[in-house]
């Protein structure tokens, strides 16, 4: 995917990684999958947040992989790690215990209140498309203190109401979420190829920054409801040369997760 709006110094994926990395704080415990979230965490670790602890769904903490993991349970994550626990334990003792500061999620759809769908397109009983299902996504959405969502920004992926709520955002607003008995938390930031979005007091999505060369109208055109825009809308700061160098030369030199620029 070439970067949107004619920018050619970096790709949209690189912009997304950088925007996510900058939002991670030093010392935070992050529940990660492979792919973009992995790169975002590692980028933050190399720069402003060396004390980030990455916790993998497979039960691995403090991994020191010699290669980019091919799957969430890659053996390179285990060798040289600080600790390994069972799958039940990683969900119960780490995630449900409230030890996870940030969880990363992707999805096929996200809606106005941050609900995510990774289960079916169309009706559940007769799906048009059957996807993988929750995996740990709903658990992370319920239990991480802040959830970062990384997704391509397309109108079919940003409907007003998702076809199926796999992972709750703020159903019924922030109050509604609390009434369900969920701990404080929920989606914090949605990062797309067009911009960065947060959530307001009512739990509704708000555009807070657009990537360089993208207009709020571009974002609205790719969003399935009248999107709120923050009064102080910003332009996402571009990736720095150092960020791009780290991503390209050190974190994913073989382009395993990232499509290379032509």
């Amino acid at each position: 995917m070439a970067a949107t709006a004619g920018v050619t110094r970096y790709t949209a994926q690189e912009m997304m990684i950088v925007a996510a990395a900058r939002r991670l704080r030093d010392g935070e415990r992050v529940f990660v999958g492979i792919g973009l979230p992995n790169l975002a965490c590692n980028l933050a670790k190399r720069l402003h947040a060396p004390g980030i602890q990455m916790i993998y769904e497979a039960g691995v903490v403090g991994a020191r992989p010699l290669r980019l993991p091919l799957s969430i349970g890659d053996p390179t994550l285990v060798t040289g790690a600080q600790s390994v626990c069972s799958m039940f334990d990683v969900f119960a003792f780490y995630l449900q215990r409230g030890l996870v500061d940030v969880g990363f999620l992707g999805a096929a759809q996200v809606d106005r209140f941050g609900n995510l769908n990774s289960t079916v397109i169309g009706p559940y009983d007769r799906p048009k498309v059957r996807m993988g299902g929750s995996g740990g996504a709903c658990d992370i959405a319920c239990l991480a203190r802040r959830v970062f969502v990384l997704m391509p920004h397309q109108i079919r992926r940003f409907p007003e109401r998702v076809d199926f709520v796999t992972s709750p955002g703020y159903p019924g607003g922030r109050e509604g979420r609390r009434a369900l008995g969920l701990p404080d938390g929920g989606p914090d930031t949605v990062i797309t190829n067009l911009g960065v979005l947060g959530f307001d007091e009512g739990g509704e999505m708000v555009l807070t920054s657009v990537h360089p060369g993208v207009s709020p109208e571009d974002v609205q055109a790719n969003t399935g409801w009248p999107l709120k825009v923050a009064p102080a809308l910003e332009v996402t700061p571009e990736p720095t040369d150092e960020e791009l160098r780290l991503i390209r030369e050190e974190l994913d030199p073989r382009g395993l997760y990232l499509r290379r620029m032509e």
Partner: protein
Amino acid sequence: MSSSKLMSMADAVRSFVRDGDVVYLAGFTHLIPFAAGHEIIRQGRRELTLCRATPDLVYDQMIAAGCARKVVFSWAGNPGVGLLRAFRREVEAGRLEVEEYTHFGMVARLTAAAMGLPFFPLRTNQGSDLPAVNPNLRTVSCPYTGQPLSAVPALPVDVAVVHVQRADPTGNAQVWGIIGEQREAAFSARRVIVSAEEIVDPEVIRADPNRTLIPDFMVHAVVHEPWAAHPSYVQGYYDRDNDFYLAWDDVSRDPAQTRAWLDEWVYGVTGRNEYVSKLGGERLESLRPEPLESPPVNYGIYR
């Protein structure tokens, strides 16, 4: 004291896997018991309820072979690659029943059964549409705080298969690397088949009792089956055969091709030995990692 439970995979499946069983082939990305899955296909088991957090290729193959009535799962994909095409085809055609949970819910169901509890309380699922499509997801009120919690029912399994690095002939099994839901699966089950890369002397087990994940009294059959987890991996023994995972994405696109693959690699071989010979030494050797041994710990002799 206990006597050896060593037998062939064919005998283990013949003795302990029955039509209509609730089956759990354990292993989160690691130690997936493909050899057992293939033997179940060869012996033509039908109407199975296939349970696994991550069905992975092994259930895609069993579904394609017609073993499954229903799949109970939490994430159905080809890890790191994409979709499970046979699974998806059958679900979209309405020919395969599904019952789905979150990862946490799925392993909590096993854990409840493994602990002799009828249910497990969890702080997940609320706000999701999963409870709307799965009546097995209920709520329970905390008797102290009154807060609503989600509940999942125990998942009592008829037969679990667990692949491990090493076991002794009576079934004491040791596992390292990602330990997934291996232990919970074994304890949730009425019958347990353990397959192992190596069968070791009981003294090897006894020299590090904290490493034992499953004690022998849970185990009904012990099968010595090297490479049983291929194309998945075994920590310290071999790597995931990623080419296979990628190739399956193509093979499984088309039912005829899928059938041809099963004919060649499952029905066309008598067991894992022949499968391994057919794969060839060169391919397998390329999957071997350089060795890296753990340091010892001192247990001490107390007399």
